[in-house]
């Protein structure tokens, strides 16, 4: 998430023919994508790529730099990063790969590609201020384990934050299957 001055530079040269790469580089977290020289250190460090062919961080970066916007945003690959940051620690070019993936996911959500589980997270957050709801069963049992009563969540402040950034206006899927 560095490169503030680079972001400004990008803004200046912004034209009507802005590319997908430009769009990613202007995002928080996406600034470093174009430094990639496709060495594959990320893929060989990746715990997900080790067990499935459905995800390879080098491919996601390559397809993005090749302007394959629709393929990248509509596919499942960007959602298969486990956010472990191994790749980012080891990248010899200092590409902030895990942060680039977040930037791509942010763009995908804006374009309406929203995996169901993410709507569940969002609904949990908006309704209760938590993404994992507290069960009444566990809450009732707290005194048995010597645990104090749970404090109230800061829903009022949260709702104002979500209204300001437009998070609450994203077209979330309704709860249920």
């Amino acid at each position, binding site marked *: *998430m560095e490169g*503030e001055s680079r972001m400004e530079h990008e803004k200046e040269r912004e034209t009507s023919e802005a590319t997908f790469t430009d769009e990613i580089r202007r*995002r*928080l977290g996406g600034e470093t994508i174009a430094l990639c020289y496709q060495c594959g250190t990320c893929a060989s460090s990746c*715990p*997900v790529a080790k*067990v*499935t062919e*459905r995800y390879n961080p080098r491919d996601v970066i390559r397809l993005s730099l090749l302007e394959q916007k629709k393929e990248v945003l509509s596919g*499942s690959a960007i*959602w*298969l990063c*486990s*956010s*472990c*940051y*191994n790749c*980012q*620690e080891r990248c010899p070019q200092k590409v*902030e790969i*895990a942060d680039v993936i*977040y*930037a791509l*996911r*942010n763009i995908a*959500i804006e374009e309406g590609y929203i*995996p169901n*589980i*993410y709507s569940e*997270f*969002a609904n949990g*957050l908006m309704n209760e*201020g*938590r*993404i*994992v*709801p*507290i*069960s009444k069963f*566990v*809450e009732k049992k707290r005194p048995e*384990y*010597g*645990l104090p009563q*749970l*404090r*109230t*969540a*800061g829903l*009022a*402040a*949260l709702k*104002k*934050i*979500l*209204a*300001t*950034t437009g*998070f609450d206006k*994203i077209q979330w899927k309704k709860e249920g299957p």
Partner: protein
Amino acid sequence: MTSYALFLGCTIPARQPHYEASARKALTRLGIGLVDLDNMTCCAPPPLQSIDTETSLAIAAHNICVAEQADLDIVTLCTGCFESLAMANNLLKENPKLKARVNEILSNAGEEFKGTKEVKHYLKVLIEDIGLERLKKNVTKDLSSLKVASFSGCHLLRPSALLKFDDPERPHVFDDLIEALGAKSIWYRNKLKCCGGLLRGYADDVALAIARDKIINTTKAGADCIVTLCPFCFLTLDLGQMLIKSTYKEEYNIPVVHYSELLSLALGIDPKELAIDFHKVRLDRILGKIT
């Protein structure tokens, strides 16, 4: 006595009373003050960062504001919460433009992030406020026959540029804290690799395949138990063994315990006080080795 604002997050109070009970009891016994504050929310972890990074930073900053107003540093148990809050705290402290943007958002909620407080994982509190030598002196049980596979999870260490907790490739703090209890922290293959936990819910098959690797590697190394810090790692490896049994027809039965539970047991706290029924894999195998 140093006091901290305790940040519990979502998963621990919802599903893991054993983590909360053991952490509260052990830290309090060691003289760490834990203060519960109203108005905290979700920390804004990777799933929310995936939706909108800017909103996530503002939510994390809101939680830090609550601690700033109470004039307390934050201590977290969950490494996911540690990552979200410490990353936001350090990023906003280092980047005035981003701080201004986040404060613009927070102003609508009547808040301002000042950047005057620290976010610490409880391991850091143990190392800095108690220290290994004092910790050793508080241990009343013998754990010397216990071989432990430590698994810190990703977000205690990485991204290291912002978390600044330990060497991301050759960490030692967590293992030092295990050995201070008298147990032996053993090496196993791919020790620092992810458990796959964050893929649960989106790609369960992939998450389980990664978790299975971790279970196999720790078992092969002869570990008596896996010691975790993150509630997602715990869930992935403990409940995960039930799923591995039904999916792969393999049975491992390796107990998974949070460090706070091992610490509580070492300090002589009765297991009956620690809500250990919340474990899927029973702890008998290790309880017998703690004398």
